[in-house]
């Protein structure tokens, strides 16, 4: 079975072809227009999705050496995300599925970040505990079986990725800041200074206090000092973020005793987070998985994979073309019905 995945929830237009659970191709257009603004502008993103989506599809099909008539089903992100960008990918997918007379699987973007783990680790065992850390979400999710999710904790304010992006901007290092902060931090000394850890002793996260602390730190010290010690400051900052993330992940793991622990979302590409989580998992002899970097940030391979897994579980009848399928910008994983 060949599944086409379409993802457009934020600023990446991505299409992927998946055959029997194996990725044949992924084509992604990452919008660069936003970098000057320090954040994604929804109207600009929506316009770029519509302009580029046909070329991205063509690219993905060419790379996979398959034609549209070989496609058995389409999977498309319908939420959560920015409504304008979601509507472009979703309507394009609806057009394709409708005219090819094939099923269309609505994919929850957060679930797809989690299921991205199955691309390279198809044998992951349930129940699992997943830490979803991305630009818009920071959530601890427990899954007893396929498609069922219980929310254990979530951020009360900023998402971890959002906090990292904002701090990168404050330090004058550009947007998005994840990769930049990661490589700076890898060269620095995390003991250089200590930033606060938010929401101790709670399953929920908080990163706005940390963001403010970094802001004061930058104001308090002169620019030359900041620039001179940038790697050490980045390392100390990232250390605070990944300490909070892992502390809560581990406490929840002690409580829920899952068979597997998963990292998911853009921030799960982070070196420090992976290191800390791996050390813990080794100590507790619990299996830890995270996707390779290209499947951490937004990509349609995870969308196609989710659609494929849902079809395997529920059959194609469940996903017969629904003309009314709508985008749900604030879709929550714990509300999942299918």
């Amino acid at each position, binding site marked *: 079975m060949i599944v086409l995945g379409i993802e457009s929830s934020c600023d990446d237009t991505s299409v992927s072809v998946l055959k029997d659970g194996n990725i044949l191709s992924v084509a992604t257009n990452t919008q660069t227009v936003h970098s*000057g*603004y*320090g*954040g994604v*502008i929804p*109207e*600009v993103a*929506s*316009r770029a*999705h*519509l*302009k*580029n*989506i*046909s*070329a991205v*599809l*063509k690219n993905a099909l060419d790379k996979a050496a398959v034609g*549209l008539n070989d496609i058995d089903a389409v999977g498309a992100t319908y939420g959560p995300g920015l*409504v*304008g960008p979601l*509507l*472009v*990918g*979703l*309507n*394009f*997918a*609806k*057009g*394709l*599925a*409708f*005219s*090819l*007379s094939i099923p269309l699987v609505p994919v929850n973007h957060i679930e797809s970040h989690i299921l991205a783990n199955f691309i390279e680790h198809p044998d992951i065992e349930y129940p699992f505990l997943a830490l979803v850390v991305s630009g818009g979400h920071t959530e601890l999710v427990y899954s007893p079986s396929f498609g069922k999710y219980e929310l254990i904790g979530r951020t009360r304010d900023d998402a971890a990725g959002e906090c990292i992006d904002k701090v990168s901007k404050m330090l004058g290092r550009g947007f998005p800041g994840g990769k930049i902060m990661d490589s700076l931090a890898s060269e620095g000394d995390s003991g250089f200074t200590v930033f606060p850890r938010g929401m101790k002793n709670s399953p929920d996260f908080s990163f706005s206090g940390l963001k403010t602390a970094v802001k004061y730190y930058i104001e308090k010290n002169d620019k030359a000092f900041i620039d001179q010690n940038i790697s050490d400051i980045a390392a100390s900052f990232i250390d605070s973020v990944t300490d909070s993330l892992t502390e809560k992940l581990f406490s929840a793991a002690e409580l829920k005793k899952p068979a597997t622990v998963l990292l998911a979302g853009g921030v799960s590409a982070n070196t420090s987070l992976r290191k800390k989580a791996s050390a813990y998992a080794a100590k507790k002899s619990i299996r830890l998985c995270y996707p390779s970097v290209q499947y951490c940030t937004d990509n349609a391979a995870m969308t196609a994979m989710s659609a494929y897994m849902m079809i395997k579980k529920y059959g194609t009848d469940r996903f017969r*073309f629904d*003309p*009314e399928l*709508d*985008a749900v910008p604030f879709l929550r994983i714990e509300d999942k019905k299918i």
Partner: protein
Amino acid sequence: MYILAVETSSDRASVSFLKETKIIASGSVSGKYSHNKRLFEMIENVLKSACMEQNNIDLFALGTGPGSFTGLRIGASAVKGMATALNKKIIPVPSIDAVALRAFEENPDYGGSDIGIAVEGMQKDFFYCIYTRLEREVVKKSEIVVHPYGFSSYIDGVTAGNVEEINVSFKKYIPEIWPEAQYVGRLAYIRRFTDSSDDSFEPHYHKEFKNVRV
């Protein structure tokens, strides 16, 4: 030649199935946030009442605005998906041209003169352009401009469009002239050789999206 025409630039979305310039079936819905939920249902119904299958479609006609950004993108992405799947061409037709054609047809008294067309801009403003009729076509006699509600001081002659009368004060106004898929389809047929689109075509947003750099 069979044409499927889709028009989603305003609060009223419509779909029309045509044989050349003859309408075989049409459907429409109105409502601010319903286009995404109702578009494919409309397409299904129009195909059904025309007794047609999708593979009968030879050409897609798409209303490209200006108008609601979101509405335009819903129509454009859906039609791009369908046209790609069926390997058929899309002829983009400015929705404001379709409004002009409709204004001339429904008001034959003005056939010999120019008509100003005012299309709702969704941001307390409207798009304005003067058209003249030329055989089966409509021809722009000015550039499209954006005016705030109430603007009318130098607009003489007849204006037609879908801007609510409480928001504009033209000397002579023919209200309730909405863009409709059947007119989009007819213009697409007439323009089938002149206009062609590639995969990356965009609607006529007609408003640069400006943002302050941080």
